[in-house]
Structures are given as structure tokens and as C-alpha cells.
């Protein structure tokens, strides 16, 4: 498969599985700082909604910045308040003559009031909750007042929002840009969840192969497109079912929402946005006092050149900038660390060392489980003459003994890396450390009577900091568990569908018919 994307080389093989998905933003920023020799401490913060969420502090001798996801503590409370409130955002941007959709916050949900308040707006309209997150409750394409009324009722009664915004719908495509200081560092366009026909496979099959790709992308690996009512409804609108086979090249929309988390595709669009818009994106962030940086949502119609800024996120995920499905990744972590730690610009310790990276399992294992309050990473190794090697050997001594032998030497010689049990009696080591120490280590292994067939190779791949032992000799229990769970879920879902079908009136009505059929079959 030839890639339609180009991701950052420094993240290749250095993002542990535990950091995939939302956590990638944390990891990538911390990793960027770590490679420059900055110190990193992760800590647990008790969120007011429950849950332990990790925060991390990046610090040097004379500078210290704490991040909550991608937002540094330097962003003012006032800025956060404005950005959470979409109406305040609109007003702040409008004041600076930055294009925003015309609209307002409804002060009352009384019908006559709504009518009067929205009389100046042109259909189609959009309604959305004032403080919504992640596209929840955003309804677009409202064509008349009856629909408007219904949807406002829906937001109020079904989703329990009482602060509701109405604004004009802006034709165009949906972009998200990351702005810091005076620069748009990256922007991507969101394609709504979709499949593209090949003339052979059903929509269901196409969705499956699409999900197979998504799970391989670190940014979307846990964001499968799941078949649900919304998708079925959307397909019905376009006269499709899950079993239809769209023709080659046919774009079939699966949902109206564009969120990447619910199945949308991030396409790099940094070069698509004209300078004028980019200038206004920077201006937009500046228009909010104390903001410094943010993820700006903008709708832009390439044909007409019209655009409007919808909202600004103070804690945008940067995973889609790092892992677009199409196009180039952009160095958002670099821009962030350059901005807050300018003295470290370009000073990568990693330039002359093996490709070190750090573990992220500690967040799930210790921080989220409320075992540990804080976790300080060891600094990025930095000394002359570091080297890395891959070493293989055999031993028929018991595992614990071999492990103890290797592990204690790792500690003594301050090696980093891992020990893998490939299959019973066969081992592989990835070792990074002083090259003379490694030579000494290999000699030591070779002269050890417990081991045999010691071989070594040059190794340029990633090296995990610390000592890790992996047992690769048996089928991975975690994978089995996961598979088990997934199947379980599927069975439940199918059972439900089956029950619905069986209990539906039509099924009951046709019961005599089926009985008849069965008799005939006999």
C-alpha cells in the first residue's frame, strides 16, 4: 500500500500503545520536551466529575509549565471561560471584525421570543448548546421555523440543554487549525464519516476495511466507525442499505457529524487555507485575552472564498495534526515547546543518541488506579559514546534466573532497553548504553556457561527507557481478552436486534406465514 500520508519520523516506533488515541497529545508534547533534555513529571488530578486525569509538568532549572492535555497553565481562566461559552467567543471575535456566523444565545425558549429573536437570521440555521463538547447536540440544516422549534425542543427535552444558540448555517468545509503565537502551525479538514465505493464490496464491507485502517493509525486506533441508527438513517436518506454496493469512486456519507472521534477523516489542509484566513485565525486567538494558543474551528468554502470562525478550543487534541489520513503531519509539539522553552529550540539530545522513548503504561497502571500521585521520568540519556545493539542468545536455564542475570547487569551498567523471550529458551535483548559497556556485556554473556549462541547486531530502532521484559512466546492474553470482549459485544448487539425483530408487530403478523413456510420445507 503506498501511503497517502507522511507522519513525523521522530514518532515512528516511539509512541507506546498505551498512549494511542487521546493520550497521544500528552505523549507527543512530553516526548518533544524530553528529547530536549527537559524534565517531565506526570501527576494525577482529581477531576470534579470523578475520574483521575493525568496532568504533566515540563520543567528546566528556571522554567516550568504545567499542561492539562494540550493547554498550558499560562492560558488565563478568563480565556477559558470565553472559549467554553460560544456566545462570548462570537462577541469577542465580532468586535475584532473577524468573520463569525450571525446568531445569538436564546434568552428564553418561549416560542414568540424565539420567533422575534431569530427574525433577522437567514435559513438554513444551526442550533447548538452553549457549552457543548465534541459536537454533541449540534444540529445543522434547519430549513424552517417549525424545524427550528422542534430541534430546540429536542435539545432541551432530550439532551437537557437549556442554554441554546441559534446561528446561520455557513456553507463550506470544516477545518481545524492549531494556532500558537503568531502562527498557524497546522490545519486539517474533516471529512464526514464516509466510504468510497469500489463497485465490488457492500457498504458494510467497505466500512470494515476502513476500520481496519483506522485501528492501525495511532490517532484513531480506538475510534472505529460503529454501525448505529444514525448511520442507517443517513444511508436510508441516500437510498442505500448496509448491503448496497456503491459504484466505483462513489462517495457515500455515513453521518452528518464530522468529528474524527465518531468516524470522520482528518485530511491535512495546512496549505489549503489562504493567508488571509490564516491571519484571521491568529487574530482570533489574540482577540481572546490571555489565550496564547488554541484549536480554531473554521468553515471555509473554497469556491466562494467565504469563511467564518465557529469556536476556539483551549485544549484541542493534536492527534489529527500528527496522524492525518491524507497529507503531511505538522510539528505541533515542536511549536509548543519552542514557544514555552525557546532556549531549547533545536537542542535535541536525541541527535547523537539511540532513539530513546519512554513508557506510558504508568498512567493507566499507577495514576488512573490512584496508586501514585506523581511520576517523574528519568531524564533523556545523554553522554558521549552511546550505542545500541540487538543481542540474541539461547539458554535452557529457568526464566527467572536468566531474567535476574540480565536485569541486574542492566542496572549495574545503566543500560536501557528490553528483554524478550521469543520462544522457550530463546531470548532477544535490545540494549542501549556506553559502547564499551556493551562490548563488555557481550563478552560477559559469551563467557557465561548458562547461555549459548550469543550473537549481536547493530540496532537503530527505538529503545524504551528502563528495563522491560516481554514474553512473546505465548499468545498474547490481552489480545485474547480483547477479542473475547469484542465478540461478546457483537453477540449482545445481535441478540438485541434479533429481539427487536422478533417483537416487532410485522414479525408477529407474519408468524402464520412462517409456520406455513417451515412446514413446506419439511
Amino acid at each position, binding site marked *: 500500500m503506498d501511503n497517502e500520508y507522511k507522519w513525523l519520523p521522530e514518532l515512528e516506533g516511539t509512541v507506546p500503545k498505551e498512549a494511542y488515541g487521546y493520550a497521544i497529545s500528552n505523549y507527543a508534547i512530553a516526548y518533544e520536551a524530553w528529547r530536549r533534555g527537559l524534565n517531565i513529571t506526570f501527576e494525577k488530578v482529581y477531576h470534579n466529575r470523578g475520574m483521575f486525569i493525568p496532568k504533566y509538568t515540563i520543567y528546566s532549572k528556571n522554567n516550568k509549565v504545567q499542561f492539562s492535555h494540550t493547554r498550558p497553565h499560562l492560558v488565563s481562566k478568563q480565556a477559558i471561560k470565553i472559549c467554553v461559552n460560544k456566545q462570548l467567543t462570537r462577541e469577542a471575535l465580532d468586535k475584532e471584525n473577524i468573520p463569525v456566523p450571525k446568531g445569538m444565545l436564546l434568552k428564553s425558549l418561549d416560542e414568540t421570543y424565539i420567533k422575534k429573536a431569530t427574525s433577522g437570521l437567514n435559513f438554513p440555521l444551526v442550533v447548538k448548546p452553549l457549552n457543548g463538547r465534541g459536537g454533541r447536540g449540534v444540529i445543522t440544516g434547519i430549513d424552517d421555523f417549525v424545524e427550528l422549534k422542534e430541534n430546540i425542543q429536542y435539545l432541551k427535552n432530550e439532551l437537557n440543554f437549556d442554554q441554546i444558540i441559534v446561528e446561520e448555517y455557513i456553507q463550506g468545509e470544516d477545518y481545524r487549525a492549531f494556532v500558537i503565537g503568531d502562527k498557524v502551525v497546522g490545519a486539517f479538514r474533516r471529512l464526514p464519516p464516509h466510504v468510497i465505493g469500489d463497485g465490488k464490496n457492500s457498504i458494510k464491507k467497505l466500512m470494515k476495511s476502513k476500520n481496519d485502517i483506522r485501528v492501525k493509525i495511532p490517532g484513531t486506533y480506538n475510534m472505529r466507525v460503529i454501525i448505529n441508527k444514525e448511520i442507517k438513517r443517513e444511508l436510508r436518506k441516500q437510498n442505500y442499505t448496509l448491503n448496497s454496493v456503491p459504484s466505483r469512486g462513489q462517495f457515500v456519507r455515513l453521518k452528518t457529524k464530522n468529528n474524527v472521534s465518531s468516524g470522520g477523516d482528518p485530511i491535512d489542509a495546512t496549505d489549503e487555507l489562504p493567508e488571509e484566513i490564516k491571519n484571521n485565525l491568529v487574530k482570533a486567538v489574540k482577540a481572546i485575552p490571555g489565550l496564547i494558543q488554541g484549536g480554531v474551528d473554521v468553515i471555509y468554502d473554497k469556491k466562494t472564498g467565504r469563511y467564518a470562525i465557529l469556536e476556539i478550543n483551549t485544549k484541542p487534541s493534536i492527534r489529527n495534526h500528527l496522524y492525518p489520513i491524507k497529507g503531511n503531519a505538522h510539528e505541533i509539539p515542536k511549536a509548543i515547546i519552542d514557544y514555552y522553552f525557546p532556549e531549547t529550540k533545536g537542542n535535541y539530545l536525541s541527535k547523537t543518541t539511540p532513539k530513546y522513548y519512554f513508557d506510558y503504561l504508568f498512567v493507566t497502571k499507577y495514576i488512573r488506579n490512584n496508586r501514585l500521585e506523581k511520576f517523574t521520568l528519568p531524564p533523556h540519556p545523554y553522554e558521549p559514546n552511546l550505542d545500541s545493539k540487538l543481542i540474541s542468545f539461547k539458554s535452557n536455564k529457568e526464566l527467572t534466573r536468566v531474567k535476574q542475570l540480565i536485569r541486574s547487569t542492566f542496572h549495574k551498567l545503566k543500560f536501557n532497553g528490553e528483554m524478550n523471550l521469543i520462544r522457550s529458551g530463546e531470548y532477544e535483548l535490545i540494549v542501549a548504553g556506553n559502547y564499551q559497556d556493551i562490548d563488555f556485556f557481550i563478552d560477559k554473556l559469551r563467557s557465561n556457561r548458562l547461555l549459548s549462541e550469543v550473537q549481536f547486531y547493530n540496532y537503530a530502532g527505538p529503545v524504551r527507557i528502563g528495563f522491560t521484559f516481554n514474553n512473546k512466546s505465548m499468545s498474547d492474553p490481552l489480545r485474547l481478552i480483547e477479542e*473475547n470482549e469484542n465478540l461478546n459485544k457483537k453477540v449482545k448487539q445481535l441478540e438485541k436486534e434479533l429481539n427487536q425483530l422478533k417483537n416487532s408487530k410485522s414479525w408477529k403478523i407474519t408468524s402464520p406465514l412462517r409456520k406455513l413456510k417451515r412446514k413446506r420445507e419439511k
Partner: protein
Amino acid sequence: MKEIQGISLPHLTNEIVKNARKTRLDAFAVALEGWRRGLKLKWYTRDSEHFQDMIIFGVNPPGRLFSLSSEKKTHYFFRTRGDKVTNEAVEIGSEKDDTKEILLQKGVPVPLGKGFGEDASDEEIISYSKELDFPLVLKPTNASLGNGVVTNIRDDQEFLKAVNYVRHDLGYGEVVVEQHVQGEEYRIYVVEDKVIAAYNRVPANIIGDGVHTIEELIGLKNEERKKNARLNSCLIEMDIEILEFIQEAGYSLESVPKKGEKIFLRQKTNVSSGGDPIDVTDTMPEEYKKVAIDAIKAVPGLHHAGVDIIVNKNRKQNVPAVVIELNPTAQIGGALFPLKGKARDIPKAIIDYYFPETKDKVDTTKSKVYFDLINVLEPLENRAALEVEVSPAPMGKLYAKKYIVYGDVQRQAYHRWLKKQALDRNLHGNIKSTVFDEIEIIVAGTDKQKIEEFKKLISNNKRNSKVTKIKEENHDEPVTVGFEITEQYNTSSARSIQYALRKMEKDLKNMTKQKNRIEKDNWHIVNSTSWKVTEPVRKVGALVKNRQ
């Protein structure tokens, strides 16, 4: 008497210290006391900058270096020794000669003795020896590894021989004559001007009952030692030394000692070679205690340490006891887990000294909360972290419940959901799968209401579980901080993993079968003529539904 728990502090039981062995026990006991008082607890590797200026040794694997902090200050600890003890004090304490010198200067009794230079005559040395009581020791001043040390010199003639041997045969002109101290030995732990604990180390021994042989009695004694968290790793091992020792006393392993007859097995008093720590804090004469306190006071910057004394029987030296050693980084296991007497709370005294503002503010003697040392130290052991801070101890009265939940409750999604509910409510504990249709949940927290809330939720996840019965029990056992799903399958045992995998693979097969069947059913229905026939009906139905 068959009890599982030997003598211990109520809040520092065998279970709580089960993962803290040897010198880790010392560090853990002090760290735990501080943490339970609400101090911030951090553990470090030796690479940490905070210990660059502190004298430390034998710190790997981690679990010996930690810090405790209040809002206002932080103190660093190496095992039982905190940063108020100066490096100079540590140096003096670890060099026996330096210790002796400074104690002599300050008038603290030490074994008598005197050094002689190259130019001193043999006569001079011999005449000095007459001022002391036998037995004596003669050794080269710069003796290393016991070379040329002659001990247990019992009379003038032996002494003469020794002088000849050391000075003339071996050629060590510079020598020390010292009293060979023998007698009851005590370890005393002193914090400032108070004796916190004193115990006697009695060499490995057994007491006859008129029935069992010596060999059997050793076995019985070991059973008793196994109950003791400090001693369970230091059982009496039958070796040649023991055989020879009892033979000399006229016994063999098959002898049956009389009831009440005490037989020593070795000369060494070390706990690690089978010695018994016997608490004597309450009965020790004040004059011995004073010697120990004076010794601590004599060394500037020592503040708290262990003091080894021997009761003096030398009539020429009119003192109750002599100090033979100072231990600025003393092991305290013998005082926490004595074989007889009472356990003594040295950690409390140490924390009181470093954080007097927390003294008597929090009563930790009833505390049942601790942290899982292995778990907490794992990132340090793998050098995946430079330092870690333990989640704070829940402060206040801890309520704990155990729920045994029956039904279809084995799904991981259910366990994960339960965990989230517990963590969201700041509850601690764990979920354990016992048998296939039963799980055990332990929840603990300072807010009773949150536990009630959690209980109500147990049967609430209908999608992933079917709870048929919940049995509630009070949970009196200690609880670790944090919440975890205890691994169902003991990963340390290959057999249980294989078993679990086989079971899982079987489950998977069944599930796949079930899935295929249902899918087929569904397909049949959707594609059945009757379903197609009724399509218009359904459409109308949908319209009607939308209206509503």
C-alpha cells in the same frame, strides 16, 4: 498456642509488611508512619539528585530512599536515618575507632583499651595489660580483615605469647590492647534523649519440653519464627556450626532436653543466624539507658540511632555498661517484631522528631490503610521513573466493606465499570474473581455515603452483568490505597496462565459459534419474504413513531 500473627504493632502487622523485606522493612515502616499522618511520600532511585550529598550504601533495589513532606518542609530519609543526622555523624558512627575515640572524649563508657606505637616496649604493653581484667584482645592498629587479631586472651602467659606473635612474628609494631567484652548485649534505639526501644539479642536457642528432640525443637522454634515478619526470613538453619556447638555442650540432635532446659545453639547473636530479639524496654535498668542516651549526645549531629551496649562485668571499670557500636542507619525489625515482650513504635518516634507538628494529631495506631510497596516501587526498579509519589493516604476514619457478588458477573467490561465507579467516588479497594459466577469487591473510603452509593450501583450495569445476589460483610483487613482489578490469572504461575488461555480460547470458540448463529438468524429474518412483505407496514410504523 497457634496464632498466625506474632508480636507486632497493631498497625504494622505481618500482612502490611509482607512485601518489605530486610532493610526495606525499616524504610517502609518509617515511610508508612509519615504517609499515614498525611505527609507526602516520595520514593527515589539512587540516581536522584536529592541524595547526592547524603551518605548512602546498598540502596539497590529501590525502596530505601524516600522523602516525606509537609506543606512547609521536606525531609529525606535513607532507611531509618533522616537528613537531620549529619554526614559527619554517620562517618563517626560507622568507624568503630572514631566512635570509640569520641565517646571516650565525652566520657561515655567504652571497652577499656590503649594503643601503643612502634617504639613502645613489650614491657610497657604487658604492664598496661595488668590494669585490665582478662580476657583481653591484642590487635594491630591497622588490622584489616582480622589479620593478626588475637582474641580471648585469658591469662598473663597467653598475653605474652600474643605480644610475641603480633609484634615480632607478624611484625605489627603498632598495637592495641583492649578488654575482650563479653556479656549480655543489648540494642537500644534512641531518639534525642529518649530510649524508644531496647532489646536483647539472645543467640539461637531452644527450650526443652522433656518430649521432643533438639532437632524437633528447632523445627518448632522455626514455626514460631515464621509467624514473625522480621524473623520469617531468618529461620534457624541446621549447620555444622550448630552441630559442633551442641556437641561441645554434650548434646546431639537426638538428645531430648529436660523440660525448661535452655540450650544455646550458637554463640552468634545475630537475628539473621537464628538469634531471638527479646524486648526489654520496660525492664532495662535506667543506668543502661543513660549510657545509650549519652552516646547519642556525644556525637554531634547524630540525634537518633541505634546503640549496641554490653553490660559491664569488669570490676576495674566502674560503669554499668559499655558502648560497643553506634548504628546511625539502624535496622529496627527486631523492635517492631520481637519474639517476646512488646513491639516498640520506633517509626512514630522518628516521625515525631522530624515532624513534631504532626505529633498526636493523627492516631495511626488504628490505621488499616497502607500502600502496595511492590507496585509503587516497580517503576523505580525498572528504572522507568526517577521518582514516584504515592497517592495520599485517606485521612480520617476508614469504612470498608466486602461485597460478594453472585450471578453473571465475570465480564471485564463490568469489572472495569465497577472500578471506574469506585475511583470516581475516591474509594479504595479491589475486585477479585473467585469462581466463575462470583466476584469479591472490597471498597474502602472515609465517606460512608459513597460506599452506600457504590453498593447500590453494583447491580446497575445491566448491559454487562446480571447480578443475582450481593452478600455484604464488614472488612477488617488492611486496605491498600488505589483501586485495582486483581489479575484473575496469577501471572507468576505459568500453569494458571495456560489454564486461563485455554479457557479463553474455548470461550472464544463458543462465542464465535453463537455469533454466527445469531447473524444467520438475523439474516434470515431480514431477507425472509414475510419481512419484505411487511416493509410498507414498518414504514408506516416508523412514520407514526416519528410523529410521537
